[in-house]
């Protein structure tokens, strides 16, 4: 076969400039061969399936082959050769036959032409054939199609439309994946971890959609390359800068505006991308009716930048830099966790990530990546009041050096590597900022740790039917000094009052180590060409966790390393799936079942303030969690109408044993996790009405999240108090919402340099007042307590429809 195609190609070359004679209507006409190639821009990889049309004395069409080549036989004359495929800018070249006989096209993706048909590397049938389960890859094009809140295209919100993903509610930071906590998702932007994925306290995610290439989301079957979090991996890749041409792209939205510039510094050798986003949302607060929001401020900016250097075909160097900052000022002290009276609190948080990666290809089969990552997350709370002026700083610093080696040959794909991480955490450093301040300085002990890991991941095609991916990761963690570890009286609950002494560890001395093997397995068995069965198992260790006891986490909440008391979290998951495609891969269906066990999940002693807690082991409880569910997905990939429907059944319960008397009514009993929503339906549809215009909609439904209701009330010291006992046994009303969007894309064939498009969307179209929570209040300032009734109230965060508009452009 290989020989034949070589010969064919050889002949093709030979005949290239010579006329061939063919008999048409009895007349012998000279025909000339025109050959050409279509390549992806800027990667210059072959582009198959592109429609090639020759317009001239006659009109002939063909499509490109797998290697991107095409061949036309044309009569003498002037032609215009057009290369066209959906999702890319159409290219056109005039030629004169027989003088011109070779054409090359570079097709550039039309980032604004948000199309439905996936022409990219992911083919529909891969759903069945890939050795992957619980994995979703979202291209930025498809994310941009989903109607957005306040016009901001959002990666994290898009993920929430996938089966198995939930959150405690609108406006909350982070997502819960198959029963895992929000800190159990490993969010990587070009290998650098992101500790807080949201801007504006949870309204938007920190990823600038312009600068992204794609997002891969693993909720099961996680390969051994990844480790460090117990539940999922969200791998966000920054777009490669354009090595050929400078380009400006941007957008104006209601809340934030974007601008991206990318292009070559040295053509085809060095290219740079700089994308930035900034909000101007302060003005929104002027419309706020609630007095508590007057004087509030909320602003953010972020910069994403990537430098690509390609000194030779075998070496590539990438440097990615991300910096994002939020400032959130709240009038009053509604969020002051520091037990200090304040007229306003300023929360700010900043992420700064730097990744440097060197790719080296030893051969076509063997390559290596050497990566260095520096990441810092630093939240601060400040109070400007002179009598109590203070600044409370905290921060996480992460340094990682890792080497990954990849080998691909025939039926084998092997990844192996080693990684070393250093963590340094400042859990809290409180300082008075004025001489007149009454605040005493308080600095909590810094935490230090190292994590080392080695892995081997091997994907092998055992037979035509069976493929297996197995992997093993070994991770090791050591908590390091300098640190003073408290000692507690034996046989009593740990409390500040039961500290009996302590041991001081010198700098670099190991306090406590943890470690273990993390096996990973995915097997795929093809039952028929369109049907497969898949099975997976994975174990994940997590040595660092978020300490937060509120319904939704605050950006300033503390990250804590495992130590002498706090054990690492472990997630074990098995899943089983059936995948089937219908009507030539037009419809994709799947059913996935999973069971997950979480070991050492964290919960907290009732009523403890975790801010600036000097001995966190007196407040953190560890227990186990179990989560199981079924996920059904029906997806249509091609045609004018695309989209998916998913139904998820999921249950997540935690079991916490607490030695403290204040927890005795919930100790030892499984209770539903805060984000446990048993039934979820997501419907995402996209309908293309013309070349420029498409409609999109999504409808979501989920069971209300669990809540603790009071079972009775009592009267102490002239106050009625609701009495809560069993945790999360009731649920708030069900949630459902419809969003619609309309995108008007730039004309795909336009020659104009300045191209623009619009995106309109309406969030919560039927203005349902979805419950965020149900709460009980007895206090009423206007009525004397004695006559006061305990009332139940429903809080809705997005209580109405929210229309928005965004203007996008490229230049």
């Amino acid at each position, binding site marked *: 076969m290989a020989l034949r195609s070589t010969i064919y190609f050889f002949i093709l070359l030979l005949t290239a400039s010579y006329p061939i004679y063919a008999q048409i209507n009895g007349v012998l006409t000279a025909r000339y061969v025109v050959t050409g190639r279509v390549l992806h821009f800027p990667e210059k990889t072959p582009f198959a399936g592109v429609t090639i049309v020759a317009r001239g004395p006659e009109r002939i069409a063909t499509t490109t082959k797998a290697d991107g080549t095409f061949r036309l036989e044309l009569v003498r004359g002037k032609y215009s050769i057009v290369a066209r495929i959906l999702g890319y800018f159409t290219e056109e070249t005039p030629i004169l036959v027989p003088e011109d006989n070779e054409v090359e096209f570079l097709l550039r993706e039309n980032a604004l032409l948000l199309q439905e048909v996936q022409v990219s590397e992911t083919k529909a049938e891969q759903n069945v054939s890939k050795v992957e389960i619980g994995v979703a890859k979202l291209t930025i094009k498809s994310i941009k199609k989903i109607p957005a809140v306040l016009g901001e295209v959002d990666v994290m919100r898009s993920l929430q439309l996938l089966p198995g993903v939930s959150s405690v509610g609108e406006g909350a930071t982070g997502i819960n994946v198959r029963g895992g906590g929000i800190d159990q998702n490993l969010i990587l932007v070009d290998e650098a971890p992101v500790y807080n994925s949201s801007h504006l306290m949870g309204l938007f995610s920190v990823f600038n959609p312009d600068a992204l290439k794609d997002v891969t989301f693993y909720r099961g079957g996680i390969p051994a390359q990844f480790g460090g979090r117990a539940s999922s991996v969200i791998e966000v890749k920054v777009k490669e800068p354009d090595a050929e041409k400078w380009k400006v792209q941007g957008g104006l939205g209601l809340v934030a505006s974007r601008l991206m510039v990318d292009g070559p510094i040295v053509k085809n050798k060095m290219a740079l991308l700089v994308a930035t986003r900034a909000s101007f949302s302060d003005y929104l607060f002027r419309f706020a009716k609630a007095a508590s929001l007057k004087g509030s401020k909320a602003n953010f900016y972020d910069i994403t930048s990537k430098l690509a250097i390609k000194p030779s075909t075998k070496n590539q160097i990438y440097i990615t830099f991300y910096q994002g900052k939020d400032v959130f000022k709240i009038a009053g002290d509604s969020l002051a966790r520091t037990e200090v009276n304040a007229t306003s609190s300023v929360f700010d948080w900043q992420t700064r990530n730097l990744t440097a990666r060197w790719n080296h290809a030893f051969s076509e089969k063997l390559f290596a990546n050497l990566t260095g990552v520096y990441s810092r997350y630093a939240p601060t709370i400040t109070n400007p009041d002179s009598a109590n002026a203070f600044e409370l700083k905290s921060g996480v610093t992460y340094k990682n050096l890792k080497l990954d080696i990849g080998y691909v040959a025939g039926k084998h794909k092997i990844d192996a590597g080693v990684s070393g991480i250093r963590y340094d955490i400042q859990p809290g450093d409180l300082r008075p900022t004025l001489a007149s301040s009454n605040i005493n300085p308080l600095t909590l002990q810094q935490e230090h740790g190292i994590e080392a890991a080695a892995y081997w991941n091997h994907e092998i095609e055992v037979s035509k039917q069976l493929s297996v991916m197995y992997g093993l990761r070994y991770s090791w963690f050591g908590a390091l000094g300098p640190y003073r570890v408290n000692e507690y009286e034996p046989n009593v609950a740990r409390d500040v009052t039961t500290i009996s002494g302590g041991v001081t560890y010198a700098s670099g001395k190991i306090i406590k180590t943890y470690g273990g093997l993390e096996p990973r397995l995915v097997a795929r068995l093809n039952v028929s060409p369109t049907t497969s069965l898949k099975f997976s198992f994975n174990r994940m260790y997590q040595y660092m966790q978020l300490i937060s006891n509120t319904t939704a986490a605050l950006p300033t909440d503390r990250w804590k390393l495992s130590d002498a008391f706090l054990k690492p979290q472990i997630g074990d998951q098995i899943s089983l799936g059936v995948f089937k495609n219908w009507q030539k891969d037009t419809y994709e269906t799947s059913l996935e079942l999973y069971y997950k066990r979480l070991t050492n999940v964290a919960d907290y002693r009732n009523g403890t303030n975790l801010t600036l807690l000097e001995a966190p082991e007196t407040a953190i409880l560890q227990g186990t969690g179990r989560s199981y569910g079924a996920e059904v997905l029906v997806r249509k990939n091609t045609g004018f109408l695309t989209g998916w429907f998913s139904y998820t059944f999921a249950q997540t319960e935690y079991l916490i044993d607490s030695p403290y008397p204040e927890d005795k009514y919930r100790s030892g009993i499984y209770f539903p996790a805060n984000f446990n929503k048993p039934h979820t339906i997501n419907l995402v549809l996209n309908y293309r009405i013309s070349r420029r215009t498409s409609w999109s909609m999504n409808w979501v439904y989920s069971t209300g999240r669990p809540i603790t209701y009071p079972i009775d009330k009592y009267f102490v010291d002239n106050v009625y108090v609701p009495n809560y006992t069993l945790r999360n046994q009731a649920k708030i009303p069900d949630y459902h919402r419809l969003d619609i969007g309309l995108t008007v894309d730039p004309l795909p064939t336009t020659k104009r340099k300045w191209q623009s498009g619009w995106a309109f969307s309406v969030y919560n179209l039927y203005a349902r007042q979805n419950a965020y929570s149900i709460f009980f209040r007895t206090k009423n300032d206007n009525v004397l307590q004695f006559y006061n009734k305990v009332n139940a*109230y*429903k809080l809705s965060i997005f209580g109405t429809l929210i229309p928005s508009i965004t203007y996008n452009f490229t230049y």
Partner: protein
Amino acid sequence: MRRLKNTMGRLLEIIFGGKRLGWVAMIAFLLSQCVTNYDPKITENTPKLVVDGLITNQPGPYKIRLQYSYPYTNQTSVSAIGGATVTISDDQGTVEKLIDRGQGLYETSATGIRGIVGRKYQISIKTPDGKTYVSTPEMLKAVAEFGKFYTEYQEVNSLTVKGQFNMFLDVKDPGTPNDYYRWKWTHYEQLEYCLQTVTTTPAGIIATRNKCCDPCWKIEACNGCILLANDRLTNGQTITRVPLGKIPYDDISTYFVLLEQYSLTQEAYLFWKGIDSQINNSGGIFDLPAATVIGNVACTSHPEEQVLGYFGASSVVYKSIHVPRNTPRAQPYNKEFYNWSDLITCYRCQEGPYRTQKTPTGW
């Protein structure tokens, strides 16, 4: 390029409301959230003993109230526990049995036990059904001296008042760690008329009033306010701007407030902090999860039984404050809606939670 400018100009005009479009205002909804009444339909209830009592370093009698908890939707009066045996004891061997005053109220005798700083106090209860309860010994801690009280005027956009005086307190914390504070305040206003009657007749509204037969004071307390502080971050410094509450600017008369400052143990502080977070729960996304507030009383005969409430021990200092409201600013709205006609007969001042004949401390 001109085309670009035009487009941008148009766009900015739209976004910044050059042409006031409705949707800009709609964004406001997002930020003002939305709270509505909701009926969660809860029925389950097993009555639990509720203990509410306090011993102080001030002279008695001290009151202990015993009640049962009841369904949260119930608006009927409290179900009191009568006929129980209640005793208060300290760690020095002092024991006193309380007198049953009826309606679940038990009192020490006026000449009996008195709280002493440094001692530990506890109560024992035996209910008529034979169950026994005991509280953990509670230390009576000393309390810091009263600090600086001050008010700040704030204009209010309301139809009934033009403004309010916000009350603050600065307290000098002693150098000892783990000091916990609680404040309560009561406002007394001397009443001239003890009965006001408004009758609507076809002829119009008839408003009559009766003078008080005796000196009489109206009592207004900040019920439901749980004012707490601790010195965790400010030990030995001044705890500043403790927000106590607000005084309405509805009159130019001097406003009288009796302020009490209590010392608390750490356990009592956590109890009241828990109560505060339960009753002032706003349902927001950063609220702590709702949970049982555990008091310091346990059932010794049935250890599994849940007991609510707290028996505390505190030192108290009082301060009476006269807040002048007659400062040069716009006169408050007139409070009187009716043309009153005074009747000759006087009306008795009834002693109760909202009225008293006793002259308030520091009046």
